[in-house]
């Protein structure tokens, strides 16, 4: 089994609902209900962290480091959150999240058949996302 840097990708809308979930790892595959629950959990934690911050102007959690995984989160100006669960110490995750955000703005937001805040069902988004992840994986293994 190839070395997988990314375990999963979540995209949540501004009210905390899960609109996209993709699992890349062989371990820890969860069903729909669990992923929905996790997404709203993360949304709440992200919001609470902004209140807890000792300095003003905090925009929420960017990185969560645990014993055997990292969680990188990117929040757009509109409140849509992209977060990826990856192995510890995986490089360039922020860059990857930005690229995924760009794919989102291109293939989801410019799609006339996509309803805002609804689950993402866009073929082009899936195709291009798979290509980006694959390229990222190849780059990682190549070094």
């Amino acid at each position, binding site marked *: 089994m190839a070395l997988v840097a990314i375990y999963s990708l979540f995209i949540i809308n501004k009210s905390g609902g899960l609109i996209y979930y993709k699992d890349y790892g062989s371990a820890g595959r969860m069903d729909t209900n669990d992923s929905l629950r996790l997404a709203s959990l993360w949304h709440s934690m992200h919001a609470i962290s902004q209140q807890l911050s000792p300095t003003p102007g905090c925009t929420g959690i960017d990185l969560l480091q645990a014993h055997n995984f990292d969680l990188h989160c990117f929040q757009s100006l509109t409140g849509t959150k992209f977060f990826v669960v990856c192995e510890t110490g995986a490089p360039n995750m922020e860059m990857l999240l930005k690229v995924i955000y760009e794919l989102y703005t*291109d*293939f989801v*937001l*410019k*799609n*006339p*058949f996509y309803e805002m805040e609804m689950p993402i*069902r*866009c*073929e*082009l*988004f899936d*195709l291009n996302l798979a290509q980006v992840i694959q390229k990222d994986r190849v780059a990682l293994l190549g070094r």
Partner: protein
Amino acid sequence: MIGVGKAKQYANVLDKPLSRGRQEVSLSAFAFLFSELVQFNQTQVDNIAELERRLEDAGYAVGARVLELLCHREKGNRRETRLLGILSFIHSTVWKVLFGKVADSLEKGTEHEDEYMISEKELLVNRFISVPKDMGAFNCGAFVAGIVKGVLDNAGFPAVVTAHFVPIEGQQRPRTTILIKFAEEVLHREARLG
């Protein structure tokens, strides 16, 4: 207009020369505008055929104007009278001005004499659009088909133009073909001209 310096003031706006205009427009801006056009028409219709027809009508208006503009700008007001002439005009000049590149290919239909096809790997208007499965064979390229129809009709070559997805083996995304079916009179005239 803000901040526009004019070299020479014209007394009558009709005397001003036609500018070449901005050659390029932001793709994102166009994509959003087109997306809104599709969404708006979706709210006005009950079925997919109706939606395709509306997009075609929108394209028809564009085609008519583009023909006038390009005849003046590119071809020095010469008029195409031959079938192959107008087809290659659409395939190269119109496509270049609208989409920044010439169309991938122009073919004559093998089954019928009156059918021609312009193929494109992926139409510019469809670049960001993923049609949901429940809409069947709907293609937003109907807009481009309307543009072609507008150009042909106003140049004196009435035709029925439609856009189709053609799946290709070994490729995930299907190619798009604009199918042009000319009216009887066009073929008769073409035959008469020799």
